C-alpha cells in the first residue's frame, strides 16, 4: 500500500500541491487524472524522491518511504529518456543492476522482457536507431526490469497507437499481478475508464475526488436517474410528485426517481398516457465525474 499524505509543495509564489492525500492499493491500477498543471507530475516526482515536498510525506505499508524501498520502485517519468547511444540490452541490464538486481538475474530478466516486447532481435541496437514506438516499449521495460514492488507511470501510453496501448496494458496487468500498486497519470479519460480500478482526480493542486472507478460512476448501487422517451410531449412529468426532473426536451426527459424501485411507478404513469419508447438507467461517464469534480 502506497500512501500519499498531506503533500504540499510551492514553486516560488505558486502553490502547486495543497495537502494532497490518497492511497494506491496493491494489485490495483490507479488512474491519476487532472488538467495540465494540476500537479500530477509534481506529486509523482515527490513520490520517487526526485523532488522534496515542503510538507507531508509518502508512506509505504505504513512507514515513511526510504531510499532503499524507492530503489525497488519502477518509474516512468513524464519526459522520456534513456541513453540514446547505448545498446538497448546493455542499458536495460544497467538499469536492472542500478535497481539492485545482480548481473545474471538482470541479464536473464532483460532477455525475457525484450522477447515479450518483440524486441529480442534488436537487443544489440542503439536505442536511437529504434522507432519512437519501440523506444517507448524500451522505456516501459526500463520501469519493469527489476520487478518493481510499486509502479509510478507518468503518461505511460501517450504517443502509442491503440494496438500498442492494448499490448502495453496487457503487459502491465501481467507484470503487476495481485500485489503491486500502480499509479498512472493520463489525459485519456476513456483509457483510464477502461483500464483503471481506482481513480484520483486532482485539480489546482487538490484532490477533488478519489475512490473506485465503479463507485465514482455510481455503478456499485442501482442508479435512480432514468432517461424516458415518450410519443408525446414529456412536460407533464414536472407535475408528478416525488420525481425530480433534471431535463425535458420535447418527448424525452431525464428524471431522478429518488429511490430504487420508483421507476416502476413512473413507467405505469407514463403508460397510462400513451406508448413508452424508452426507459434507461443513466450512469455518468468518467468524463462527467471528472468535469463535475474539477468544476467545484
Amino acid at each position, binding site marked *: 500500500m502506497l500512501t500519499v499524505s498531506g503533500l504540499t509543495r510551492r514553486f516560488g509564489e505558486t502553490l502547486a500541491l495543497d495537502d494532497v492525500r490518497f492511497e494506491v492499493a496493491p494489485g490495483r491500477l490507479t488512474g491519476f487524472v487532472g488538467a495540465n498543471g494540476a500537479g500530477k507530475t509534481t506529486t509523482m516526482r515527490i513520490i520517487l524522491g526526485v523532488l522534496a515536498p515542503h510538507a507531508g510525506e509518502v508512506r509505504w*505499508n505504513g512507514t515513511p518511504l526510504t531510499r*532503499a524501498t524507492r530503489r525497488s520502485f519502477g*518509474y516512468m*517519468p513524464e519526459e522520456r*529518456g*534513456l541513453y540514446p547511444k547505448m545498446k538497448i540490452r546493455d542499458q536495460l541490464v*544497467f538499469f536492472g*543492476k542500478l535497481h539492485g538486481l545482480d548481473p545474471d538475474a538482470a541479464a536473464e530478466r532483460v532477455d525475457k522482457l525484450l522477447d515479450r516486447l518483440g524486441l529480442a532481435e534488436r537487443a544489440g541496437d542503439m536505442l536511437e536507431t529504434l522507432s519512437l514506438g519501440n523506444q517507448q516499449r524500451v522505456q516501459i521495460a526500463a520501469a519493469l526490469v527489476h520487478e518493481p*514492488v510499486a509502479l509510478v507511470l507518468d503518461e505511460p501510453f501517450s504517443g502509442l497507437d491503440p494496438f500498442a496501448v492494448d499490448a502495453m496494458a496487457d503487459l502491465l496487468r501481467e507484470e503487476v499481478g495481485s500485489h503491486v500498486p500502480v499509479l498512472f497519470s493520463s489525459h485519456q479519460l476513456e483509457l483510464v475508464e477502461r483500464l483503471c480500478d481506482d481513480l484520483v482526480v486532482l485539480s489546482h493542486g487538490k484532490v477533488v475526488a478519489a475512490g473506485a472507478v465503479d463507485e465514482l460512476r455510481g455503478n456499485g448501487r442501482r442508479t435512480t436517474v432514468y432517461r424516458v422517451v415518450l410519443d408525446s410531449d414529456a412536460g407533464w412529468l414536472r407535475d408528478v410528485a416525488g420525481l425530480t426532473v433534471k431535463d425535458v426536451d420535447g418527448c424525452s426527459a431525464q428524471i431522478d426517481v429518488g429511490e430504487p424501485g420508483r421507476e416502476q411507478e413512473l413507467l405505469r404513469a407514463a403508460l397510462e398516457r400513451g406508448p413508452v419508447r424508452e426507459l434507461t438507467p443513466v450512469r455518468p461517464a468518467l468524463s462527467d465525474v471528472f468535469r463535475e469534480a474539477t468544476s467545484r
Partner: protein
Amino acid sequence: MSDTQTEPTPAVTPAVTPAVTPAWWLVAEREITTKVRDKTFIGSTVFLLLIVLASIVIPALISGSDGPDKVAVVDPLGTAVVKRADQVAGGGAYEARQLAGVPEAERLVSDGDVDAALVPGDGGYTVVGGSEVDSDLLASLREALLAQQTERNAAGAGLTPDELRAGSGLTERLLDPGPIPPLVAELASIGLAIVFYMTALGFGMMIAQSVVQEKESRVVEILAAAVPIRALLWGKVLGNSIMALAQITVIAIAAIIGLTAIDRDDLLSVIAPVSGWFVVYFVLGFVALASLWAVAGSIATRQEDLQSTTLPGQMILLLPFFFSVFAGDSAKTVASFVPIASSMAMPGRMLTEDVPLWQPLVSIAILIAATVGLVAGGARLYERTLLQTGRRMGYREAIAQKAE
C-alpha cells in the same frame, strides 16, 4: 489444521538486497565501458601514444644512432687511428674499412657507402668527405691522429707514452652536478606539465559531457529516482579518474619503452622516481577539479552550453600551465605550493633542481585540503542543479540556489 502447513503470505517488501554492487561503482563501470567502446576515444588515445613515442624516438634516430660511422682507410696507420678514435669514444662509434687505394676510397665516399675517408696527405693525413664531414668525426680523428703520431715521435726520441703524457692529464669535477643535462630536464618538466594539462582537460571535458548528455536525454530523472545523486557524481568522478590514470600510465609505459629503445636508461633512472610523485599530484589535482567539471555539466542543459560553462575549468588549468612552464624560478617555487598549479609545477621542479623532501609533502597536504573543499562544494552545487532541466544557469546563480 497444523500450524506448520503454510506460511502466511508475506507483505510486499522491497526485493533489493543491500549486498549488491554499490550504485557509484555501477555508474563508474558504465562510464568506463562506454568510453572504452568509443572509437573517437580509442583513436585519440592511440594518437597521443604515437606522439609521445615519436617525440622520444625520432630525435634519437635523426642524430644517427644507426651503428658506427664508417671510415675508409688505405694504410695500417689509418686503421690504427680510427681504432684509437673509437676507443676514446667508448666503442661502437667508428669503424675502419681497409681499401686498396685513394680512388676507391673516394668513390665509396661519393656513393655514401662510408661517412668519410682517412688518406695520407700533405704533412700528415686528409679527411675526405662528400659535401661535408661530421664535426664530431673530424674532431675525434684529429685527436686520435695527434695522439698516435705524438707517441710515435716520442718513441723515436726515447720517451715512453707515459713519460710523454706526464702532468698533462685534465679531468672534470663538478661542485653541483645536475641529475640530467639541464636542457633535457627542462624539456621533461614541460612534458610532464603538458601531460597533466592535456589529460586533466580532456577527461574533465568528458565528465561535463557525460553529465549534460544525461540531462539532455532526460535519463537523469530515472537515475535520480533509483540512486542518490551523490552516487552518480562519485561514479562519474571515479570512472573518469580511473580512465585518466590508465591513460597516463600507458603514456608512461610508452615513454619507458621509448627511452629503453634509444638506450637512455640513465634518463629513466632520474625520471622514474619523479613519475611516482607526478602520479600522486595527478590524481589529487584531477579529483580536485572533477566535481567542478560535473557542475559545468549540471548547470548546462545542452551540449552547446558547455562552451561557456566549462570556461572557468579551462582557465583554472590553462593559467597555472603557462605559469608553471614559462615563469621564473622563484615564481615556480610559489606555484608549486598552490593547489592545481602545484600538480604541474612541483614535478617539474623536482626534475630541474634539488627540492627538499618537506616541500612536496607540504604542497601535497595543501592540495589534499583544497581537494576535499572543492569536492564537497562541487557535490553540493551538483546536487542542487542536476535536476533543473529548464534552462542554463550561471555559477553565481547555482551558488545562490537554496538547498531543498
